[in-house]
């Protein structure tokens, strides 16, 4: 039973880690990364390392997505300025017409 649990957790980690590399768009990547964090925490718990799992949960569930999305937002605003000269388009809102 424990073997099945470890194999399940390992497969989930392998799947989400591969997906995190394969997905190219940073926004979607951050979503995959959030899931990878949770799955890694489960793997650490299964391998009886709750301290590491707790670190992973604390960092991966909210902090990493926040840092990534804030960076994406800033970069997209700059990209918009470079592409559209900054006029007219709504620079504050990162979405839609990003590069």
């Amino acid at each position, binding site marked *: 039973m424990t073997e099945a*649990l470890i194999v399940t957790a390992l497969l989930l980690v392998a799947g989400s880690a591969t997906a995190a590399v394969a997905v190219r768009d940073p926004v979607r990547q951050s979503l995959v990364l959030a899931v990878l964090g949770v799955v890694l925490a489960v793997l650490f718990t299964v391998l009886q390392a709750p301290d590491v799992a707790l670190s992973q949960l604390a960092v991966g569930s909210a902090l990493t997505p*926040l840092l990534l999305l804030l960076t994406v937002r800033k970069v997209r605003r700059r990209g918009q300025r470079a592409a559209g000269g900054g006029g007219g388009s709504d620079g504050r809102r990162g979405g839609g017409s990003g590069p």
Partner: protein
Amino acid sequence: MNGWILAAVVVLAAGVGATLWGVVTGPLRRRAAAQNLSTALACPALLLLAQGYARPAYVDLALVLAVLGPVGTLVFARLLADELADDPPHARGPTLTAAALGAAVVLAVSLATGPGRALVKVLVVGALLVGGNLVASRALAGGMQEARRD
């Protein structure tokens, strides 16, 4: 043989596995909803593991995930509000299923825990988990902002 561990394997393989598929494929709205569901399902799995290993200290993991998981979803709901506004994710069925599963797991674990402070702790985790994920999925589905956007 340990029924709790077996239940955790099922929740992880079927539930979290399905959300992993959801977060890797499809449009952005589906991915965001799947991310929310992944924490909503992993938290009951952690509770089941704590019970299965007979280690009450592991409940802290479920507690932290129940607190921070919905916060992570709110991060996406907040910073992707514009992308999601045109095409908001409505995942009522899966969300309610995950909430029901969480409630069922919390109920089973608290029945096994028996009365005492540990029981209240499990119930607190359950309330944070179910309430947080319902609020987070509502925020994803366009309930983040009132009239104006930021």
